[in-house]
């Protein structure tokens, strides 16, 4: 770049006079003298071919917002499948927007005491919701939580097979498949075509003395409540396997926590608890277990414990069993660890603190009322039926086979009405034909649902 030197606001020492002074202090004549350790052959010989910079913030803003405007806006959406629009209290955004939390990192507990306490409260509040005593710092997402739970179970039992539902959420299933590849075999359990929940007979045939864990989803990917969960747990435990339940944490104000029906692991994604959709950037994984060293010693992420300080009555925080992690023991640690989702964990703590027991109950009830209303109303549309009749939480499968139209065509037509229909299941679960997974949360109103039903009537 020729002519006037640019002083970059984010690079204070790009002020030419200051830079000169500092170069002199380090006995460098020229900027490139700083790089004398990099041999010429390894240096970039030319300038990078990057777009002309947008130097001022107002133009930058116009540029980025201009591009993002192409997304369009104002859609009424019924998408779920592992990420759903739930109510986000303003206080959640207020706290996660605080510069101290937004820009903190992995520093020790003294100067960052507040961050450590917030992490501890995240684990404590999730522990209450899940009725379990042990949680680590969060994982990347629910899929990672499920995959790590399975690996933990394999290490604990010394067994190399696991059983998971075939109709598992593919966003979770694909992560598990990749993560277990080195040495764990995945056996898939079929669902009953009539009820949509697991076929117990077929499931039983998959469980053996080689099974490290049985993982179920509750609510399932198809939205259903797995009424036989306790029985499945007994089957797993009697074979010496761990019983892992992948759950939707926002359901737990009204649904029993998995620990109550025998789960030895509860895991899932906490996005529903105070996080925006964020185009998939609001995900975060959790794993909870009982207070038992066999489990505690298998966690891969950091565990933060509360501890006394030298001042009476004062709480401090410290790392627990650090050598368990890859930070402490490199390749000998449990799997690998790294930066994942601290700020979202703090946000979950804020959300659960605001909700309290009553808020979680109320949220669960409103969701169930709205989703049941939607299922009922939409099944009255000609050509549409509710695929499975059993109880569900916030999602349900609509069967369009009798309409003679494909889900893709229906969704295209709905989009013209600025409605985003459910997730098309026709490719991933072809046995369901033209079926679609609809999600209705506490954010959808009766008017929204009636609008969808009206549009569907038009389309079909």
């Amino acid at each position: 770049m020729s002519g006037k030197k640019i002083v970059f606001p984010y690079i204070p020492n790009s002020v030419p006079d200051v830079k000169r002074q500092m170069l002199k202090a380090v006995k460098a004549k020229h900027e490139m003298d700083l790089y004398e350790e990099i041999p010429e052959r390894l240096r970039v010989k030319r300038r990078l071919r990057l777009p002309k910079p947008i130097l001022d913030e107002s133009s930058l803003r116009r540029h980025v917002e201009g591009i993002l405007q192409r997304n369009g806006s104002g859609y009424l959406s019924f998408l779920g499948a592992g990420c759903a629009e739930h109510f986000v209290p303003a206080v959640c955004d207020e706290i996660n927007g605080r510069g101290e939390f937004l820009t903190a990192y992995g520093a020790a507990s003294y100067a960052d005491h507040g961050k450590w306490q917030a992490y501890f409260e995240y684990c404590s509040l999730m522990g209450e919701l899940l009725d379990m005593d042990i949680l680590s710092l969060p994982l990347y997402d629910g899929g990672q939580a499920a995959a790590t739970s399975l690996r933990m179970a394999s290490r604990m039992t010394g067994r190399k097979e696991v059983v998971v539902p075939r109709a598992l959420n593919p966003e979770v299933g694909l992560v598990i498949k990749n993560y277990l590849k080195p040495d764990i075999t995945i056996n898939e359990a079929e669902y009953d075509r009539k009820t949509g929940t697991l076929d117990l007979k077929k499931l039983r045939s998959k469980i053996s003395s080689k099974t490290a864990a049985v993982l179920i989803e509750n609510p399932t990917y198809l939205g259903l409540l797995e009424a036989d969960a306790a029985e499945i747990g007994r089957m797993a435990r009697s074979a010496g396997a761990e019983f892992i339940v992948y759950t939707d944490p926002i359901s737990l104000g009204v649904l029993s926590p998995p620990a109550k029906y025998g789960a030895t692991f509860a895991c899932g994604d906490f996005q529903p608890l105070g996080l925006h959709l964020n185009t998939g950037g609001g995900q975060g994984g959790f794993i909870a277990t009982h207070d038992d060293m066999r489990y505690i010693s298998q966690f891969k992420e950091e565990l933060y414990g509360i501890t006394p300080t030298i001042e009476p009555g004062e709480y401090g925080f410290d790392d627990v069993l650090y050598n368990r992690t890859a930070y402490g023991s490199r390749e000998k640690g449990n799997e690998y660890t790294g930066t994942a989702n601290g700020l979202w964990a703090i946000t979950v703590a804020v959300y659960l603190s605001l909700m309290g027991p009553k808020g979680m109950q109320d949220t669960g009830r409103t969701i169930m009322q709205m989703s049941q209303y939607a299922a009922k109303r939409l099944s009255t549309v000609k050509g549409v039926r509710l695929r499975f009749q059993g109880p569900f939480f916030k999602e349900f499968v609509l069967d369009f086979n009798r309409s003679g139209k494909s889900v893709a065509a229906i969704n295209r037509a709905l989009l013209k009405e600025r409605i985003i229909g459910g997730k098309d299941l026709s490719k991933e679960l072809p046995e369901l034909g033209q079926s679609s997974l609809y999600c209705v949360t506490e954010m959808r109103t009766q008017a929204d649902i009636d609008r969808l039903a009206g549009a569907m009537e038009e389309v079909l």
Partner: protein
Amino acid sequence: MGRNPKTLLRKFHEAKWDEQIILEMSVPGERGILVREAEPEVRREVGSGVSAIPPGLRRRSKPGLPEVNQARVLRHFLHLSQETLGTDVNIDIGEGTCTMKYSPKVHEQISNRNPAIRDVHPLQPTETMQGTLEIVYKLEQLLKEVSGMDRFTFQPSGGAQGVYTSAAMIRAYHESRGDTQRTEAITTMFSHPCDAAAPATAGYKIITIMPDKDGYADIEAFKGALSKRTAGIFITNPEDTGIYNPLIDEFVKAAHEVGALCHTDQANANGILGIARARDAGFDLSQFNLHKTFSVPHQSTGGSVGALGCTAELAEFLPVPQVKLAGEKYYLDYNAPRSIGKVRSFIGNVPSLVKAYAWIMQLGDEGLRQVAICSVLNNNYLMQKLQQIPGVVVRYAPGRRRLEQVRYSWEKLYEDTGVGTEDVRRRMADFGVQSYSTSHLPWIVPQPFTIEPTESFSKDDLDEYVAILTQISKEAYENPEFVKGAPYNSVVHRNSSASMDDPVNIAVTWRQFVKKGLDKRVRRSATKRS
């Protein structure tokens, strides 16, 4: 009164609220928020909704969450934020290897707080995500130019996950060639722990090369470790020492000769932006941590992206979906039969991608070079000053320049005074700067500390930082016990000596703490500070 102009030190005390745990703050009946109720007609139609739950799955007892009014919840978490020293509020140059830099505020407004990102579902039809996909696609083009790589994935949501993804791709590559004998991966001791742990998680046996007398990974030992069993190498350059390895292309060449693939961990590439590129040294794979080098805020360890680049040859193994462009339309391509599948749901941490894109667009070629030059300049300036502090030693390659960071040692101070790096680290919190990083384990350099000043800090900031460490060194020589008793002006005092590895003391949730009766012990057993 401001900073003392002579000592450059300020009188500091961090906010201390003596905050209870939120579960101790419950007042039965209080509400933090009310939840929308279903409309009367909906209720008439479906009843309570929850009656549909099978008896065995109905929650019988309320979750033991606290009942706290909204203002108090807000106040509590604001207190906790004030008891945290984020980069926004301090000269955060001590967290070496973490690349703590300024995260422009405008980026929050155009990403997380922008409805076009915040309120979009990742599975929406791509015609309603064209803007987002355009940014993701364009970010890929920018990073290709910065690294020399041919393709990128942004699915890995952390640097370590980027390394893991790379290891999974290396595994898929060898498998696709029917090459099943490759069971080992090689890394170096001064590379990040994830460079050993992530390939191990992908199934590889790990060989670790120790540093030679100059702090470089020993090339002879490295060549000796290579064989037909080597699947890949995972190496950082510069390593934690900040010393650029000038033989790096020889490492790559030697590994290629035995058929291994080469990954370089460029988590903190701050010192080499626009100066040196991974591909030019021959690497097949390389990840940038967008939350480090590319200014995405560190989010209390969150919102991270391990942007993984690879050569065209390896692109078929990238995770799905990939963002592609056909004519003028962006789309998500799931059609990749040899893909490793997924490492993370959906596309990844999209808001962070918008921030990294914005940052590069603000700086351009010249700006990125200035980032590199000023971070290296800051680092060498600081090294020169810190070396003059009694007790500080710079290990390896004396007189040679470092790039973005330096691993220092307080070994001399420890020998002279008994004050070690952990003591100094605690004392730093008394001056309003974040405690520094010591070193990843194991400590190869005794009594280590790792400083990485980045381009975000001014000469004046650096001088203040030097003044703080000078003061602590002086205190250590004059009154070592005082330093060992630190912190004094931070939020809390030094932790008691209770071992956190002893099951008796482990309490990671409030309920576990109370069940074990440890809450009572906090008050009973602590000895009052004199």
